[in-house]
């Protein structure tokens, strides 16, 4: 598999002097094409900082970042914006749709910045909205839609440019469980079509949709496992037993992995 994202010894610091906070501490990570990665961890563990750097909204203090094997460290502001537009689709917890324009214009927004003609980009956006079952809501304003529908619009917007990676920051954080399930099955479907997805979540039930789970603690990667696949029904791509049991199993698994990793690190430290 080709790597989509490669991070080498990546660090991110905020503040200066005594007030320096380390958000990311020497992270090395490779994500291949077609992976569905979930990043978990407590608040302040550096999840969002990592997402911001991967999403080219922020630059690391140290370390290297390759996106589709291209170094992005020395890109100009303008090139970074173009990379964001063409290579990255972002999905946010609070949807981040523009309130003043209708659904279809929101979806077509990234195409606008590509300079695509009005009719063409609306056609493309419409096609995508149809696959999300929102064809009839195209000309609604965002405030006329439910949370689940809004998030589907946001996903459509993230996909409209056919990006190399989709970054989802707590995509179900503002949704009820039923809407969450719909959104997650949409994301699973997108993943099955070959898209690379990186998702941040607190919710272990949601994390089970991913096939790789990275747990972060204090700006470092505490564990990195591909085991959640075992907990899933391979056909339905959904948790094998009840959500609760699966989540419990996952939590136990992550806990074990984290301890293992810590031990390794301690041993290395002793040597």
């Amino acid at each position, binding site marked *: 598999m080709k790597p989509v994202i490669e991070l080498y010894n990546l660090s991110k610091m905020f503040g200066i002097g005594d007030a320096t906070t380390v958000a990311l501490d020497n992270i090395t990570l490779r994500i291949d094409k077609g992976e569905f990665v979930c990043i978990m961890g407590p608040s302040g563990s550096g999840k969002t900082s990592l997402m*911001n750097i991967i*999403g080219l*909204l*922020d630059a690391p203090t140290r370390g290297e970042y390759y996106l589709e094997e291209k170094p992005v460290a020395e890109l100009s*502001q*303008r090139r970074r*914006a*173009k990379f*964001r*537009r*063409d290579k990255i689709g*972002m999905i*946010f917890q*609070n949807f*981040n*749709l*523009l309130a*003043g*324009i209708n659904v279809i214009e929101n979806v077509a*927004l*990234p195409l*606008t*910045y*590509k*300079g695509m003609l*009005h009719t063409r980009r609306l056609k493309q956006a419409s096609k995508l909205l149809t696959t999300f079952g929102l064809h009839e809501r195209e000309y609604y304003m965002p405030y006329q839609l439910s949370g689940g529908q809004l998030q589907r619009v946001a996903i459509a*917007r993230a996909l409209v*440019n056919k990006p190399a990676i989709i970054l989802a920051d707590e995509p179900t954080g503002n949704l009820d469980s039923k809407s969450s399930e719909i959104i997650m099955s949409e994301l699973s479907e997108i993943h099955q079509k070959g898209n690379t997805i990186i998702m941040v979540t607190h919710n272990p039930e949601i994390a089970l949709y991913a096939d790789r789970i990275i747990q972060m603690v204090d700006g470092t990667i505490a564990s990195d496992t591909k085991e959640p696949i075992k907990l899933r029904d391979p056909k339905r791509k959904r948790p094998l037993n009840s959500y609760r049991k699966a989540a419990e199993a996952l939590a136990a698994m992550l806990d074990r992995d984290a301890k293992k990793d810590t031990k390794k690190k301690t041993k290395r430290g002793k040597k």
Partner: protein
Amino acid sequence: MLMIDVRIALKSLKATRVRTGLTVLGIVIGVAAITAVLALGEGAKATIHDQVRQLGDDLLTVRSGQGTRDNKGNLSDYNFWAALGSSTITEYDLEKIQQTKGVKVASPLMAITGSVRANSNDQPVKNTSIIATNTNFARVAGLKVHSGDFLDESAERNTVVLGQRLAIQMLGSDTAIGHTVYLRGEPFTVIGILNEHSVPTNLSDLYDYNRAAFIPMDAGKAFNQGVAQIQQINLRVDSGKQIQQTARDVTTTVSHNHGGEDDFVVLRPEEALTLTNNILRIATQFSTAIAAISLIVGGVGIMNIMLVSVTERTREIGIRKAVGATNAQVLRQFLIEALVMSVVGGLLGTALSYGIAWLLGNAFGVMPIINWQIFGTAMLVAIGVGVVFGITPALKAARKDPIEALRQMQ
């Protein structure tokens, strides 16, 4: 790409209609003020040119003062202040000019300061002029006699021809031939009263013929210790086509009389109005400068609203950047919003200015003219205001950090 930006801008502006409308109003008022002043200035200029045309293309004025002409024979520099000094034009000049080839008829103009009274005990009439001249003056200046006769060769020394308004004001009639009036205390017999003269601008900028008393040169000289103090000589040439040549001939004649001293100018009608035009230009420039202040206020309004808008829309800027807008695209979006407001303001302002200028023009008797130059100037100024006052907020928007911008909404 520009169309896309304009569409985005229009959408954003539509979202805050009242605020946008009020901001545009600031520009409308500024542009309307400037355009109205310019349109009135242009209208006044046109009125004067029209009147010059009515005077005819065969008219020349010889006046004291200094002027230089360029190669094409156009007056490039005219020191009109010199014309206010003691005149250098003499009766001998008049005599010689009348003999110059191509000159049809010539008449002097000698203005005399002094009181005009209906009776020797009355208060002097205000705003009148006493003009000493000869019989040709009516022909040269295009004056028509309403009753009686104009001055002629056989006229007695103490005779006077009155402008119509002066006659009506002073004597209560425009047929009061034979009455006696008092000029500088001396009795003069009214031998003629002129028709209303419809060209307010005449070749002697300062005198209103409708309120003037015309007396023979001899009488004028008698008021001036027997010396003819001629301000200017007006003359008609045989043919308007030959006017350049005749002007040169007249110049040669007078120059010869004055021993080659460059102390006079021969002016064509439009040149004779240099003083009026200069005053008009200065007045227009001055008024435009004052009107420009209101446009600056309008511009500050745009800047203010755009700065508020940028702060309010931090979230939007963050989203746009997150989905791939470059700094330049964000800058362009906000700049175009400012420009849309200023251009719409410019268009509405120009339309409004025509109404204002028309109302003012009716009051002052000048019809405003909005030509492409004025329209272009107004629009350029409006666009300039949009750019100058829109760039700071647009830069502020473009430089927003997307992470900060996205965080602000949470």
